[in-house]
């Protein structure tokens, strides 16, 4: 069932967009996220301590063991981006001395602080009591919390998660993370919260996590159906919201994923495609795999470009940024701390290049996709540096066409709708040509068609 709701109009959009179509699960998701913002806004009056942490390597169940209200600066930035508020925040941070070259999530967060720390929903967010720097797959996180610490002057605890440079998790890496959890992270969280750590409480939360993880994986893998009942990139943003943020391990998340699953089961029975903000999908013409995060400032416009062409994203790497569950990992209530370590080490951006390429090739095969699209994000070197090699390798190995577009996370100055649309149109034409030529099933020794990439830039 779908219910029309009004999307908050953008300040830079001249015309009000028509009401966006959303499924019930999307409304429930919004309710959860907004509820968390309210919880944060009222944390002080409720005498609760506040933590801040990141999405990849998010130790939500552990934070809940200490009764923290939980803030995630990345989601604050993206929510502000979707609400068209991030542009000014970024410019404010740049005026305050931050380079135009660096991550716009960081600058949106710092800009929000400069503007009085008013959160995306309009309620003031509290200063965190602890910054849990679970530093997974991105060096910028480390500098981000150092920057915030300079301003907030609050307790900061680092969880250094080593990178899978050799494409595997060694015992040494696992032991290192585990030791930090036991000897650094937990004692700090105990000290800040005044709550003693109870491992059985952690186990209990993890039992809930597993239920939600099962349903999330089922949901993401439902895109193997033809037509796909979901969009595994734009739609998946809603699906991953609760589990990647403050809700993994809660009964609310379990309920959300159960509702979502029922909704999708119904869509499969009815042979329907995904619901998009423009309405029911007009019919699946192209099935794509997407690598890289979405642009948030023009999220709906970006999605509409796919909708207009009849394209559905059947799998995306971004939907694995807060945890790779579809290859079997689940949080383990019997080994809770060990599984937290394993979880952090396994997040998508902590995988090395050969692993990332293998994953994408597997998706192209298993989801019977027509090709790969890379949305390369200026802000995010962790994702973006080297993506042009990913593109070449995937084309070489699968024979399927790939394309490359560029945008940014939350900086509206780096979303060029006309350029992206042109490139997407060329790409879809190429996919069509490949189909007509009966190509694309296997590399078969012949040279692949040249990928759609930006012209090399002299540097």
């Amino acid at each position, binding site marked *: 069932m779908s219910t029309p709701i009004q999307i908050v109009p953008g300040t830079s959009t001249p015309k009000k967009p028509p009401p966006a179509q959303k499924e019930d699960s999307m409304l429930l998701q919004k309710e959860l996220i907004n509820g968390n913002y309210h919880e944060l806004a009222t944390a002080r009056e409720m005498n609760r301590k506040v933590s801040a942490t990141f999405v990849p390597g998010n130790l939500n169940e552990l934070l809940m063991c200490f009764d923290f209200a939980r803030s995630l600066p990345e989601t604050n930035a993206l929510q502000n981006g979707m609400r068209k508020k991030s542009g000014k925040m970024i410019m404010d941070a740049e005026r305050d*001395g931050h380079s135009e070259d660096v991550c716009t999530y960081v600058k949106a967060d710092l800009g929000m602080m400069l503007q009085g720390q008013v959160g995306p929903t309009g309620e003031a967010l509290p200063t965190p009591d602890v910054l849990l720097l679970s530093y997974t797959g991105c*060096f*910028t996180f*480390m500098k981000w919390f*150092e920057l915030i610490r300079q301003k907030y002057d609050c307790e900061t605890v680092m969880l*250094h998660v080593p*990178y899978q*440079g050799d494409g595997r998790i060694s015992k040494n890496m696992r032991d290192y993370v585990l030791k930090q959890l036991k000897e650094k992270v937990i004692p700090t969280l105990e000290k800040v919260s005044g709550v003693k750590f109870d491992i059985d409480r952690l186990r209990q939360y993890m039992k809930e996590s597993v239920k939600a993880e099962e349903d999330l994986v089922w949901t993401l893998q439902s895109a193997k159906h033809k037509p796909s009942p979901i969009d595994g990139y734009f739609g998946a943003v809603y699906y991953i919201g609760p589990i990647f943020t403050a809700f993994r391990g809660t009964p609310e998340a379990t309920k959300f994923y159960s509702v979502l699953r029922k909704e999708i089961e119904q869509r499969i029975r009815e042979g329907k495609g995904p619901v998009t903000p423009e309405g029911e999908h007009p019919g699946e013409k192209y099935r794509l795999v997407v690598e890289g995060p979405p642009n948030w400032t023009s999220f709906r416009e970006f999605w509409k470009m796919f909708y207009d062409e009849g394209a559905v994203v059947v799998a995306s790497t971004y939907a694995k940024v807060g945890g790779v569950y579809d290859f079997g990992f689940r949080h383990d209530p019997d080994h809770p701390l060990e599984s937290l370590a394993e979880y952090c080490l396994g997040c998508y951006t902590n995988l090395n290049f050969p692993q990332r390429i293998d994953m994408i090739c597997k998706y192209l095969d298993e989801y019977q996709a027509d090709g790969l699209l890379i949305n390369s994000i200026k802000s995010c070197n962790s994702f973006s540096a*080297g993506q042009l090699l990913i593109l070449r390798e995937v084309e070489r190995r699968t024979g399927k066409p790939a394309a490359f577009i560029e945008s940014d996370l939350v900086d509206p100055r780096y979303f060029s709708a006309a350029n992206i649309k042109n490139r997407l149109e060329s790409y879809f034409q190429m996919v069509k040509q490949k189909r007509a030529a009966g190509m694309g099933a296997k590399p078969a020794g012949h040279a692949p068609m040249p990928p759609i990439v930006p012209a090399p830039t002299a540097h």
Partner: protein
Amino acid sequence: MNTREIIARCEHLFEDLRFGAVKEWKAAKPGRKAIGYMPIYVPREIIHAAGMLPVGIFGGGDQLEVIQGDAYYQSYICRIPRSTLELGLTGRLDCLDGMLFPSICDVIRNLSGMWQIMFKDKYVKYFDVPQNYDDAIGGEFYVHEMQQLREDLGKLAGKEISDEQLRASIAVYNENRKAVRELYAYRAQEPWQAPTSELYLVLRAGCVLPPEEHTQVVRAYLAAARTEERPRRDNARVVLSGSFCEQPPLSLIKSIEMSGCYVVDEDFQLIQSWLLDEVPVSGDPLEELSKAFLHRSISTSSKYDERKEDKGKFLLKQIKDRGAEGVVFAAASFCDPALLERPMLQGILAQHKIPYTAFKYSENTGQMAPIREQAGTFADSIKLWSAA
């Protein structure tokens, strides 16, 4: 040899992007191997103990035309990975038997995986270092990582690396670091006698020469510089900060000096001064290397500062110890670690009323007039303030 002759040799080594010195070293004895490393830090002692030559790869500089490397990177990525790839793709790094990619930023981290794919016949390792500085936590992790490297290189060399070999290599690098420390101290004392544009070349020679030979070069330069009389100018004494990975072109260093600044400290070649004092040659060698890394190494933006009050401490010490009057922040364009760190350091300098200026460059920056203008104005303003 006089300084001119020494510098001419170092400049030749610096400009040789075919790595002739490495090839010569390998050719001198059959079976020798060389291992490249990127900025900012790897324990070179382990490579040396394996009987191999550690080779510092700091990009292609301003003399290399990057053609193929550009095809792998978007315009918003710094230049060092593209020029390093260019070096690899044009066969200039064929003399290397392996490459180490230290934990410095996401770009270099990802380059390690690209290298695995593109140069399959080479040994490639992403070398992680701990951001936790407890011996029992980060230290243990780091010892294991070094042990893994030791085993890998032992296999490549065809024989295990013994503790004795490691201790001997630690002693060689202790000597090298001692010589480098003396050179740094002398430069700070009499910067007109040992200008940074020369010191830089002397240090860069350490990227391709065996450490024993490099130590001799450093000492020879130091001895020669002490004996030569050079004119002393009324320059401002500055620390240059933020150039630890992608290197500025040599002409940029010269431009800063010509504009009226004596660069009395910088972070160009951190690997050569990373460990602040002698590593004991007794005891377990890997544990000693670990302790030196955890407790007696320099601070830079790729390293986590455990406490808020640690931020900027190292820079303030550099300023104090070297008698600097200001700081020039020179970071490579799109260098996340340096550019994210910079506002924090600037805030601390402002609190201490230490003047600073900032600009960006890339390794092939060609236009020096704006840099000269900015650095010159900065030097003038320091002189004016100090006179006031």
